[in-house]
């Protein structure tokens, strides 16, 4: 399910979360798998995966702790799906 808009304090945070999850938690589907279905995970599922990776409370919501972690300088390599 999409993350409810009221979970965001502002548009900036909403964009931050989307960019972050697309950059580091979008499982890059393997186009070589014939007939593979688009299994794009939902934002909430990617958020839960990110929260689990960083040892945060797994809520599936962009809480302040999660946003704070997303704002930290980091490596550009995805955390999943290599």
């Amino acid at each position, binding site marked *: 399910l999409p993350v409810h808009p009221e979970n965001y304090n502002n548009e900036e945070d909403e964009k931050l979360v989307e960019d972050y999850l697309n*950059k*580091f938690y979008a499982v890059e589907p393997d186009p070589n798998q014939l007939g593979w279905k688009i299994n794009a995970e939902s934002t909430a599922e990617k958020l839960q995966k990110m929260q689990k*990776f*960083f*040892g945060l409370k797994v809520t599936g919501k962009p809480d302040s702790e999660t946003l704070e*972690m997303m704002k*930290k*300088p*980091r*490596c*550009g*390599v995805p*955390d999943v799906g*290599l």
Partner: protein
Amino acid sequence: YGVTLPGWKKTKLTYRIVNYTPDMSKEDVDNAIQKALKVWSTVTPLIFTRIHEGIADIMIAFGTKAHGHCPRYFDGPLGVLAHAFPPGNGFGGDAHFDEDEDWTTGSAGFNLFLVAAHEFGHALGLSHSNDQRALMFPNYAYVSPSEFPLSPDDISGVQSIYGSQPNAPDKRPATPTSPKTCDSQMSFDAITTLRREVIFLKGRHLWRVYPDNSQVELELISTFWPNLPSSIQAAYENTKDQILFFKGNKFWVISGYQVLPGYPKNISTLGFPKGVKKIDAAVCNKNTGKTDFFVGDKYWRYDENSQSMETGYPRRTVDDFPGIRQKVDAVFQQKGFFYFFHGSKQWEFDPTTKKVIREIKRNSWFNC
């Protein structure tokens, strides 16, 4: 740790520094890159050789936003600092650094040696680790370059692909450097009592000192508290048989071997103003139930009973602790006296008479 197999099928790898950042001298960049590769060759059979033209296995370049034909883009200052590709042809093994960042040899900006060591982990086939003490943890964390940056998790990961150095005594991850207990240059990050013991913390290690029977044990912090980061900055034992550890604007409360749930918390929850970004040292006076937090040349006093910061603080440290003039690196209480540490010095202070009793060697507790 995570790996992207199969890794390189050879142990002799070449690297080439394609261009430089204007933030650092070429020599400093060369040194940072060489040192970062040495981190990995120390714990594997890998050998890195520099070439100055042509295609190397590991091509190292600085760029901004969309750079060359790289499929990944940078995002301006902060955010993404660098990226690298797992072993292979073409981009495989290459490492790119965002020129919109401030690259340095120290703790300001982003330390090129530390970021490069992380990226070269990717170039060898490691992916990110969710162990917060690992170099391969995704977020940037500054540790003193004198500290060997690989954690046991990093070493296990890279050795799962390449094995350890051929002449290493055993296949377990080589524990690269343990601090020398009797090193006369030793300084401490933080010190706390723990019931009848005194715990000295430095980098990734701690010493457990039993003053009564002059026994000293050196351990990894992660042996006791796997969730604690290294390089703790302050620590103290409160009146409830708990220890509090501080790093940056966060603190953890430990009861026994357990980090209490809900931690780390922000130090502002203790009553510090937003401007306080870190604590240098802390000690709870068991006779009064008051904890003194030292920040720069000042200190705050916290009442453990009412769980609140006392009014009228901060005060200048030297006004209430005559003779303790410099920033406090670490402090603890033993048999009623406070022991203050700064750099190479240690002072024994009587909080009742408010007098320095004597100055002693900093490693006097280790029976060297």
